[in-house]
């Protein structure tokens, strides 16, 4: 490939001195003909630009362009460009189908409106509860499962698969059958509880319960994932650490608490980041639960609120502002993680 590029450059730059180029290529069998001193006098303008870019960004900058530039541009345009555009829209007063957004008059009116809108505040609180409760419950259950499976039980692989399977289901499927299980009259949950004389409970209809019912279903789906992450972490701890702790006089419980679990810090961080991102994506689940943008009372989150404002009410600018709030929340989760990974040299 670099050979082609240099030939291309030669053609464009009008460099006809092929002898010099040949010696250059001989001297650098890896094909790096960019920094050849012998040809400095005869370079064309494109080569000069390429040379200065290479000096600035490293030796392979121009040669590697065809590989990274297209995805770079596509990502830039459709992800980051869209975010910036969304931010711009959120600063306008755009609503309805009538006119194009007016970019001449930008203000934070929509954010003020969001901060005073009780619907948005409720949705933010619900999103927050969802993230925190779902993530911590999933981590705790995943850790407990991982520790149990790591104790060398029989049929270990079978159990691991069983626990991991719900993870492979789509949100839509999970939502559908939890909807049936939570059914007030003949859902399996109420029937099971009924045998103990409890209920029936209106899991979906009761606005103070529904969020927890949703969290429970999500925990059911993702604790298998947390288990796998923790299991990998546990397997990386040498068995001598368990033995040393035992000989040191620690009971099993204290051994896990003081020696093993603290060593799972890395696994906890990566699992919680992934789980929090899933929690932010709970939109799919809530949408499938009721088949529209209006989740059951008490389970509205920022994602559903945003889509509802934008596409049901045509409050484009307001929806965009909610989207930016959601984006800021996601960034505040991902950002510290990226910094942490960068400091540890993993990025």
């Amino acid at each position, binding site marked *: 490939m670099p050979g082609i590029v240099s030939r291309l450059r030669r053609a464009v730059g009008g460099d006809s001195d092929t002898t010099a180029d040949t010696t250059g290529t001989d001297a650098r069998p890896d094909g790096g003909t960019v920094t050849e001193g012998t040809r400095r006098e005869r370079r064309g303008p494109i080569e000069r630009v390429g040379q200065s870019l290479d000096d600035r960004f490293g030796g392979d900058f121009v040669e590697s362009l065809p590989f990274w530039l297209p995805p770079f541009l596509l990502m830039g345009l459709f992800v980051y460009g869209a975010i910036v555009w969304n931010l711009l829209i959120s600063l306008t007063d755009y609503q309805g189908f009538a006119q194009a957004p007016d970019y001449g008059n930008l203000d934070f009116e929509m954010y003020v409106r969001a901060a005073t809108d009780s619907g948005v505040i409720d949705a933010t609180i619900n999103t927050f509860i969802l993230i925190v409760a779902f993530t911590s419950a999933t981590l705790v259950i995943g850790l407990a499962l991982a520790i149990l499976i790591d104790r060398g039980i029989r049929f270990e692989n079978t159990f691991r698969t069983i626990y991991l399977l719900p993870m492979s289901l789509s949100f839509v499927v999970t939502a559908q059958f939890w909807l049936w299980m939570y059914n007030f009259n003949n859902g399996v949950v109420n029937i099971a509880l009924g045998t103990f004389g409890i209920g029936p409970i209106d899991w979906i209809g009761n606005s103070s319960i529904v969020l927890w019912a949703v969290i429970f279903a999500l925990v059911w789906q993702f604790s298998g994932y947390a288990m796998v992450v923790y299991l990998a972490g546990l397997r990386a701890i040498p068995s001598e650490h368990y033995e*040393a702790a*035992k000989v*040191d*006089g*620690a*009971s099993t419980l204290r051994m896990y608490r*003081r*020696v093993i679990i*603290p060593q799972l810090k890395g696994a906890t961080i990566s699992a919680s980041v992934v789980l929090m991102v899933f929690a932010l994506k709970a939109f799919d689940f809530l949408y499938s639960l009721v088949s529209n943008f209006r989740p059951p009372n008490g389970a509205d989150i920022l994602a559903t609120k945003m889509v509802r404002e934008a596409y049901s009410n045509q409050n484009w600018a307001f929806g965009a502002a909610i989207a930016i709030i959601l984006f800021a929340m996601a960034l505040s989760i991902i950002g510290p993680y990226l910094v942490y990974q960068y400091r540890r040299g993993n990025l």
Partner: protein
Amino acid sequence: MADLELDSLTKIFHDGDDEIVAVDDVSVSIDDGEFVVVVGPSGCGKSTTLRMVAGLESVTSGTIRLDGESIEDVKSQNRDIAMVFQSYALYPHMTVRGNMAFGLEESTDLPDDEIQRRVEETAELLDIPELLDRKPTELSGGQQQRVALGRAIVRDPAVFLMDEPLSNLDAKLRAQMRTELQRLQEDLGVTTVYVTHDQTEAMTMGDRIAILDGGRLQQVATPLKCYHEPANRFVAGFLGEPAMNFFDVEHRDGTLVAAAFEYPISDDVAADLGSTRELVLGIRPEAVEIGGSVTDEHHFGMTVDVVEPMGDENTVYLTFGDEATETNTLVATTGGMRQISAGQSVVAHIPEDAIHVFDRTSGRALHNRRVKSEDVAEIGPE
């Protein structure tokens, strides 16, 4: 501080329907404050023995007694024992201080300041007080080793168990730590069981050594006794570097007949051998004397095959004929200043008072070298 007694200790692992006997009827009693080195080739069951004492491995049969009380049903965390692992097993998320304090926090009710005082005292003893607030990953191998030792010492346990603690160190550091460990153990006077595959460590460190092979105890005695009066051919071959020379011989009327040579023996030696005819003749390389002339039938004209100069001494491979074969090569060591080269013809003297004779089938030692009376006193009774 306590005495430790292993009584017919046996460990059988089950692998499907197969039974693997890892430790077979091992009995050793270790006195209070004694340093016993358990040594043997890999897979001989030495680590399994140690792990049974630590409570990390269940006991199939037999008894472990600590100060007269059997502990094989006591949980590991309740046996007043500290162990040093080959990989050190330092807790990576704790500082050195945390690592050393952990055992005291878990196994005693001491107040925090007393724990800190003991940790600092031990760190002082091991010359590592400046490392106390570092994490194990920031330490060199030798420093980690010291911390691992400190973690055991600070507990002031009844017994120290050490599982090849020096094998991850480089040769120089290992020699240094060997001496230091010995000094520490002597100062602390804690009963210690030390497992190693390294015969130098076994010879130099232990008050007594226990040699295991294939899960069976071969000999328990002082290092010098094991060296000079091995109980069997395995012990004789395991201890010593270069290893003892062995020749298959047949006893015919006061003469040991090997494939390459004949070696007449005195009546005293012959009396030790009894009626056994299939024998193995053993001679330590350093007991072979090179030089002089053929004066009796214990001198042999030989050819130098290979010389390995070690500096302080040369390891010389001699052959009885011209061709080096399995049965006619004799390894000898000579002083390092001595000029000797391959191809040279020399006279080798195999002194009769230095030979060992073993029963070829059972491996049992029938005759061991004679040790001069002042050495005998030093070797002492078993």
